[in-house]
């Protein structure tokens, strides 16, 4: 039963990750791969605040999410002034750089990882309580992303993505919208990261590499970019699928490459056969 809980909780966390990434890349058209590092930075921030500074865990989680939000603004201010590829390049540097920083910070457990992170819930109802919390927050995140991307603000986001120069010539401040989208998306990734830290009770820099970026991107592409339900479907499918493969009892030397091939294969198949993803945009 504990295994089922852990898979369901992981799905919930990935729904938050994929939905928030969809806000940035799917709706905003901002190509960044740094999403996992905002997840990681909030996780570490929340863990360190609760472990070393006695901050109550719920407050530490909020502080972690705000920390990621603030760092995302720092990244976006210089890189969003120029469009497209520059953000991608800056985000790769940000991702790789901060993983290296974490590996060298003693307080964050350095390369061997941070252990002994206090759990948000304990006792016999630990997993159900986590599950309920994660899914309430996941529903709220999906709702929030939907709210932001529909109505007047959503129309502006869509127009900005379609043609930024024309958008500006109508009196709209593209830079402000891009920063808001990036900050909200990264802050929500931070929320997922902080929750994960206080669930898994362990964080390691190896968990937040470029491969993790690829996984989140796959969830969004396979599910359907720029749709509300797409990332939910993508997160469900791409979290459950690798778990299902483990039941094949294949050797570890085969399992890892097989999972990688499935992710890569899915992205390629969907890009060629159904680029709109499982849930197509209306």
């Amino acid at each position, binding site marked *: 039963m504990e295994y089922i809980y852990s898979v369901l909780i992981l799905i919930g966390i990935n729904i938050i990750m994929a939905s928030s990434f969809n806000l940035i890349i799917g709706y905003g058209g901002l190509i960044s791969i740094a999403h996992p590092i905002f997840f990681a930075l909030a996780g570490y921030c929340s863990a360190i605040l609760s472990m070393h500074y006695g901050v109550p865990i719920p407050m530490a989680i909020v502080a972690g999410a705000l920390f990621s939000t603030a760092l995302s603004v720092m990244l976006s201010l210089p890189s969003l002034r120029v469009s497209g590829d520059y953000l991608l390049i800056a985000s790769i540097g940000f991702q790789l750089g901060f993983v290296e920083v974490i590996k060298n910070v003693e307080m964050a457990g350095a390369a061997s990882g941070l252990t002994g992170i206090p759990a948000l819930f304990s006792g016999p109802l630990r997993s159900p309580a986590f599950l309920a919390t994660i899914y309430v927050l996941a529903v709220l995140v999906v709702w929030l992303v939907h709210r932001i991307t529909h109505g*007047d603000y959503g*129309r*502006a986001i*869509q*127009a900005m*993505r*379609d*043609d930024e*120069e*024309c*958008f*500006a*010539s*109508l*009196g*709209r*401040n*593209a830079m402000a919208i891009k920063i808001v989208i990036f900050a909200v998306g990264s802050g929500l990734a931070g929320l997922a990261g902080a929750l994960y830290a206080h669930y898994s009770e362990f964080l390691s820099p190896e968990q937040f590499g470029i491969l993790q970026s690829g996984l989140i991107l796959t969830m969004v592409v396979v599910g359907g970019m720029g749709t509300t339900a797409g990332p939910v479907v993508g997160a469900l499918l791409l979290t459950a699928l690798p778990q299902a493969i483990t039941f094949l009892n294949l050797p570890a030397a085969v399992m890892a490459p097989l999972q990688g091939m499935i992710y890569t294969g899915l992205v390629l198949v969907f890009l060629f056969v159904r680029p709109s993803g499982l849930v197509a945009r209306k």
Partner: protein
Amino acid sequence: MSAIRVVGVRKHFGGISVAEDISLEIAAGEILGLIGPNGAGKTTLFNLISGIHAPDAGEIYLRDRPLSRLPVYKRARLGIARTWQHVRLFPTLSVLDNVLMGPRAYPGEGSPARASAILERIGLAGAQDKLPGALPFGQQKLVGLARTLMNDGEVLLLDEPMAGVEGQVYETIKQVVRDEAAAGRAVCVVEHNVSFIRDLCTRAVFMFNGRIEQSGTVEELLASEKLAELYFGGKK
């Protein structure tokens, strides 16, 4: 008093001069025609006024307010509205949503009603839920014009509004331009269609190689041998 004033504006891209000491004024209620061959610098001048390009020298004033340091979106909010030669509608937004992107203060109180009224005025009330790609090119031009009208500003820059349009759409655009000028807007039209310029413009400016070669009434310009030689490739 001029609504918009361009004073000694220069712009170079590398070693290529695209605007050389450009000066002109447009009064409120006036329709100024901007003519010249492709590459003369007409669209570049629109880009300089609307803020897409920053001038290397000179200044642009809206009333008495200098604009050169303002970004594109702030100039639009002050009332400089423009269309594009290639229309540039937002392809994933419906016709109505495209027009709703136009007000200076977004989303703007009463915008949906205004947008519907403008679409009705240009004869596109039935198309408001369609995507722009589903419309013929002429109607797309009308949507671009409708979106610009939502700005309700003092200056209207129209980049080749008649290119690729004919019939009813042609007449509608002509009437809209006339009405907007009558409402007190300063209108500047880049256009190759000489009969359109002759019918609507009180004054015209002839540009060539980034310079203003000649300006005056439309009749004066059309009688000019220099214009005939540089623009039409032969003597009158």
